[in-house]
């Protein structure tokens, strides 16, 4: 069992970060509001988890203006996608 543990990604131990990453895996990009609606958590909580995923370079943040309103788009990086896939593989291996 121990051999699988190194594939476990600490970043995805948290439910919110796992949720953010799952949503970004299935979409090209999502904006802050869409992620918030999906996870149904507070702005502050979501922002801190997004920041930590950004710090790990698992997601990129793209800020722009839509009708003069700020709009932040989040996108999974190739690095984040492969880390996530490894994490899922590790979960599946553990269950089999």
């Amino acid at each position, binding site marked *: 069992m121990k051999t699988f543990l190194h594939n476990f990604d600490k970043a995805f131990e948290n439910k919110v970060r796992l949720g953010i990453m799952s949503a970004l895996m299935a979409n090209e990009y999502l*904006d802050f509001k869409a992620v918030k609606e999906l996870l149904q958590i507070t702005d502050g909580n979501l922002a801190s988890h997004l920041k930590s995923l950004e710090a790990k370079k698992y997601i990129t943040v793209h800020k722009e203006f839509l009708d003069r309103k700020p709009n932040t788009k989040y996108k999974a990086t190739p690095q984040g996608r492969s880390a996530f896939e490894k994490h899922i593989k590790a979960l599946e291996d553990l269950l089999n």
Partner: protein
Amino acid sequence: MNKQKYLEDLHDIKEMMSRSSRFISLSGLSGVSAGIIAIIAAFAAYKTVYAHQDYLGYRVAVLTTESLIRLLGIGVVAVILAIGGAIFFSTRKARKKSQPVWSIQTKRMVTNLLIPLVSGGLLTVLLLFKGYVGLVAPLTLVFYGLALVQASHFTLKEVKSLGILQIGLGLLATYFIGYGLLFWAVGFGILHIIYGVVMEIKYPS
């Protein structure tokens, strides 16, 4: 950390991936209501197209400008009622599961549904005014089917099978051109009702 938590994680991942990319609140009841509306509309259209005819004589679709406008009116009312039903039942389902209704996922599904649907609708109306009444039923079926197949990438995957069946019916209706209304009633009426009942059992509101 134990097995239960891993299983839960995998389940959450799957659920989030589907919920974030698809409109999953589509209610089966909207299919049933659309089906009932379609059957009533088909009956009304039948009465309009084959009005004032001898019971024993050959049935010929006679269209005056007046009946053409009436036919168009029936179509427009049926579409509005069916869409209204879909919005009503899906909103109710989304509310019950406390999910946003007009989300990015809904918008994506609706845009993908509307592009083939509106093109087909406009084409049909143009052909109707050029006198090609017989093509109305087959073409609306084909375009509706294409719209469903397209939209199915952004909602419940079963919608794709319904779309393929509608396309098949539309093609058959093109071959058996005089029976358009019958095919139309089967596609928009009966198939919708069957689909709606199956979906309601599979994903209860």
